[in-house]
């Protein structure tokens, strides 16, 4: 208590020093007067009295000094004084100061911003307790990207001993559902097993979790609300559980509310959780081919490999259900939840992180370099100070203050930059980078980067001051300069190497981006507008109703004013995917079926006759569909070139018949009427599956509740969109319609590589700039160190040209060394980047050489300026130098 009070008083008194000083002087003067008077009274002469009084006091100034030591906070005042001095010295050399601060800011800013982005992908734990125990498991098969499980096999596993503490499943596709109350709204309503929340370790914040009974056939309908829905629709009512709402037209009881940070393990949206009905009764009744996504929580100390081994017997057993010829293509997969979530975001994240760490290192090297250069430049000042009585500790403290001040300023600038960069990242980032929208500046990272640059600053700022200032410094004879010159050159070589690697990597990504943007999509996206129509399950429960609606839509939209084409399809290239079947299931009469395996996947779509023309897909052989093909009796099919080549390698396929046994088993033979050009339908970089088209009929048996309308029209998209909306609203105003220009859809596919390439290019540019700065700094320093030597050479008749040549040659050696090192590094990095590259050789010699060349030219220019300065040295001035 008392000491706190004293400390505060001392702090306060640092701010009213002057008044307190005056008061002390008055007090001491008074003291002396009183003492002298006493002494005189005791019989001393006035002079002796004064002398005695002063002696007993121990000197006025000494007393004041003692007093001040007690009064304020001496060390704080000293720090303040040091920083003020440091600030003045830094301000004297604005060039140096700004360079260091900018370098630090770049390093800190870029690293922090990027780390904030990748942190969630690579390091941050998932929002589940003990998330390292969570795995996703299931069967991998060619027709499905993610591991899955068939419901009956899952049921078998439930009755067995598993490596899991608990396991759970959800129904993929996360069905949309509608709350049909006062104001209807479409929500995402994932359907999950009753063990879902307990397996992931989540508890509802209000109400209860699902129980086993909720998942029985015929159980009362219940639902869990998401936090968001609870807040917005129920105003956060704590008594919400027990209330009944209408979900998809059926009364459903709310039993609880999910926590605010709840996240689906498949990262899908979730407004409402519904229980999955999965018991014997439902298994018999439902489609036995119902797919599930299964998740488990491993028992403590069970590894993923052990779990995989433990599930093997079950997997072997479940293979019974797989037709023998497909078995080789089916495998078991158990992987951590993080791996499943992050997928291919991981490689990109590591690349970004690696490049940004390289930038941070480059920045540190630069700062170190600049500080070293400066320290040598100040040797004389240090020596003078030492001679004048400054202790070594005092010198070190001064150097430290300066470095810390620089680091602090750089750090502040870096924070600002990080903030700006992160905003920029978010604005150019494509969809689908996991968690990106949630990224925020991470104070831990900021601190870390700050720490690193501080360390660099302190280490290299103080190291020179640790040396005993040598007497020789005063007359300008720098000691050890040659040794440190080599050290600096090595630093520069390392910088060049790092920059070459960054540049080469950025170059590879750019090339890859170029390739991706120039992939032929097989269609003409200009002047094409698409509209997606989704039909709600509750108002269009059966296929015939859906088709009737779409028939009306087609009829109305067909009257599009002006010269335009309108077509309908169930899916859309180049990224909408297709319905798919096995190649092996295509039966060509008179030919044996493929004996082994699936033969790969074959996509298919239902399209109206205008489809090919509207999308600009050429019919290379035969004809397109016509209106009469939509009659119930007609069974035409159009193959893509790829499928035609695979099915009928050496014949003309037109007129041939075939049967798709997988999806219309008993169906009729279909006649090939034409061959269409190949189209990308699973993204630009993925190998396009061969595909076929069948005509859109109004009496189909399968329909997925979603259709695309394709317009090819010279009219403005906005006017077409509003016209379409009004037309569809006249049929049913509740049906949502989403528009997108085809060019936009195609463009989106390159967004991710563009993002990667832009970021890496940015870092490469920063790296090159830093390297140039570093070289410039070191060469100018070396030149200024050798000014006298150069003067002597010139006086002895050396040509200015040979002087600058000498300087350049010296730089060139180190730069070339660094570049070679960089090329080796890039070679290695090419392998790491492999999975991000498309159509680029991982070791493109031209790319590597270009990167090295850019660096060499940069280095040359950076060295040229001081080299020219060296050549223009006046011998007379140089000899008198220092």
């Amino acid at each position, binding site marked *: 208590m*008392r*000491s706190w*009070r*004293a400390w505060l*008083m*001392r702090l306060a008194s640092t701010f009213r020093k002057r008044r307190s000083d005056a*008061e*002390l002087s*008055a*007090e*001491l003067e*008074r*003291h002396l*007067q*009183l*003492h002298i008077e*006493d002494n005189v009274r005791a019989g001393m002469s006035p002079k002796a009295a004064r002398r005695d009084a002063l002696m*007993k*006091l*121990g*000197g006025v100034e*000494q*007393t004041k000094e*003692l*007093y001040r*030591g*007690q*009064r304020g906070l001496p060390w704080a005042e000293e720090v303040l004084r040091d920083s003020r001095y440091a600030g003045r010295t830094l301000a004297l050399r604005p060039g140096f100061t700004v360079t260091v601060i900018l370098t630090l800011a770049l390093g800190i800013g870029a690293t922090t911003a990027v780390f904030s982005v990748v942190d969630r992908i690579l390091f941050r734990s998932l929002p589940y307790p003990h998330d390292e125990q969570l795995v996703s498991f299931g069967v991998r098969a060619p027709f499905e990207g993610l591991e899955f499980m068939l419901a009956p096999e899952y049921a078998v596993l439930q009755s067995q001993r598993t490596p899991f503490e608990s396991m759970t499943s959800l129904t993929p596709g996360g069905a949309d559902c509608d709350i049909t109350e006062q104001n209807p709204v479409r929500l995402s309503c994932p359907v999950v097993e009753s063990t879902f929340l307990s397996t992931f370790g989540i508890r509802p914040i209000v109400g209860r979790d699902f129980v086993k009974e909720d998942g029985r056939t015929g159980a009362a309908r219940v639902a869990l609300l998401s936090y968001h829905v609870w807040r917005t629709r129920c105003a956060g009512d704590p008594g919400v559980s027990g209330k009944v709402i209408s979900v998809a037209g059926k009364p459903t009881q709310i039993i609880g509310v999910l926590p605010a940070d709840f996240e689906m393990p498949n990262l899908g949206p979730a407004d409402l959780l519904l229980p999955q009905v999965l018991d014997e009764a439902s298994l018999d009744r439902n489609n036995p081919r119902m797919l599930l996504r299964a998740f488990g929580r491993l028992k403590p100390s069970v590894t993923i490999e052990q779990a995989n081994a433990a599930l093997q017997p079950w997997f072997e057993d479940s293979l019974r259900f797989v037709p023998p010829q497909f078995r080789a293509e089916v495998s078991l997969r158990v992987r951590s939840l993080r791996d499943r979530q992050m997928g291919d975001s991981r490689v990109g994240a590591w690349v970004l992180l690696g490049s940004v760490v390289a930038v941070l290192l480059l920045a540190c090297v630069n700062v170190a370099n600049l500080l070293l250069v400066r320290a040598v430049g100040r040797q004389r000042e240090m020596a003078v100070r030492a001679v004048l009585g400054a202790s070594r500790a005092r010198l070190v403290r001064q150097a430290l203050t300066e470095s810390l001040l620089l680091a602090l300023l750089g750090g502040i600038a870096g924070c600002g930059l990080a903030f700006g960069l992160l905003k920029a990242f978010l604005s150019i980032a494509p969809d689908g980078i996991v968690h990106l929208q949630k990224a925020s500046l991470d104070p831990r990272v900021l601190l870390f980067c700050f720490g690193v640059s501080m360390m660099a600053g302190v280490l290299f700022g103080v190291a020179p001051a640790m040396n005993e200032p040598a007497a020789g410094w005063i007359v300008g004879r720098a000691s050890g300069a040659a040794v440190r010159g080599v050290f600096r050159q090595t630093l520069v070589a390392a910088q060049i190497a790092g920059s070459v690697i960054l540049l080469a990597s950025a170059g590879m990504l750019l090339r890859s981006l170029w390739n991706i943007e120039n992939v032929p999509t097989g269609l003409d996206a200009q002047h094409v507008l698409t509209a997606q129509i989704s039909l709600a399950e509750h108002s269009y429960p059966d296929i015939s109703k859906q088709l009737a609606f779409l028939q009306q839509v087609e009829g109305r939209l067909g009257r599009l004013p002006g010269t335009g084409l309108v077509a309908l399809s169930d899916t859309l290239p180049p990224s909408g995917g297709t319905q798919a079947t096995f190649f092996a299931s295509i039966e060509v009469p008179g030919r044996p079926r493929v004996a082994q395996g699936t033969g790969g996947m074959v996509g298919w779509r239902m399209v109206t006759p205008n489809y090919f023309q509207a999308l600009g897909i050429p019919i290379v052989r035969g004809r397109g569909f016509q209106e009469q093909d939509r009659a119930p009796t007609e069974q035409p099919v159009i193959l893509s070139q790829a499928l035609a080549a695979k099915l009928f390698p050496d014949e003309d396929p037109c007129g041939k018949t075939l049967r798709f046994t997988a999806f219309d088993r008993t169906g009729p033979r279909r006649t090939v009427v034409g061959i269409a050009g190949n189209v990308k339908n699973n993204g630009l970089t993925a190998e396009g599956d061969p595909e076929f088209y069948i005509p859109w009929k109004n009496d189909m048996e399968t329909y997925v509740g979603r259709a695309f309308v394709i317009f090819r029209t010279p009219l403005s998209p906005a006017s077409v969109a509003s016209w379409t909306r009004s037309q569809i609203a006249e049929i049913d105003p509740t049906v949502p319609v989403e528009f997108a220009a085809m060019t936009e859809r195609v463009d989106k596919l390159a967004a991710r590589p563009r993002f990667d390439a832009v970021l890496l290019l940015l870092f490469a540019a920063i790296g090159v700039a830093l390297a140039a700065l570093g070289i410039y700094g070191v060469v100018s320093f070396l030149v200024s160190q050798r000014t006298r030597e150069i003067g002597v050479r010139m006086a002895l008749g050396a040509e200015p040209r040979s002087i600058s040549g000498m300087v350049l040659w010296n730089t060139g050696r180190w730069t070339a060394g660094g570049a070679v090192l960089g090329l080796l590094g890039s070679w290695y990095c090419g392998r790491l980047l492999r999975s991000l590259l498309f159509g680029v050789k991982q070791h493109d010699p031209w790319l590597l050489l270009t990167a090295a060349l850019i660096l060499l030219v940069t280095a040359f220019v950076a060295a040229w300026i001081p080299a020219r300065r060296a050549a223009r040295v006046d011998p007379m001035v140089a000899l008198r130098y220092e």
Partner: protein
Amino acid sequence: MSDKADVWQGTLALMILKTLESMGALHGYGIARRIEQTSGDLLSVNYGTLYPALLKLEQEGYIESEWGTSDNNRKAKFYKLTRAGKKQLERETRDWRQTQEILAKFLGAREQTS
């Protein structure tokens, strides 16, 4: 130097507090003289160290100061004890007594055994 004992560390504060308690408000020189007199001129106060000690006590809140007029009508800074200072004085006095007793016993015991 002189045969007078210097005030040893830590006791100056106690002496100042005691002096102020018995004398009321007093200026710095007065305090120093008073301490010397009380000790029967056996102690010599280093006047220079007196002022930082006064400042420290003031910072800790045991004394407070005020400019006032001395007997012969001249301005001087007067110090006086605060309530907290009184308590602190009592506490320190008690502590000193205790220390003294212990030491006395200890020294007495030694004399008997030897």
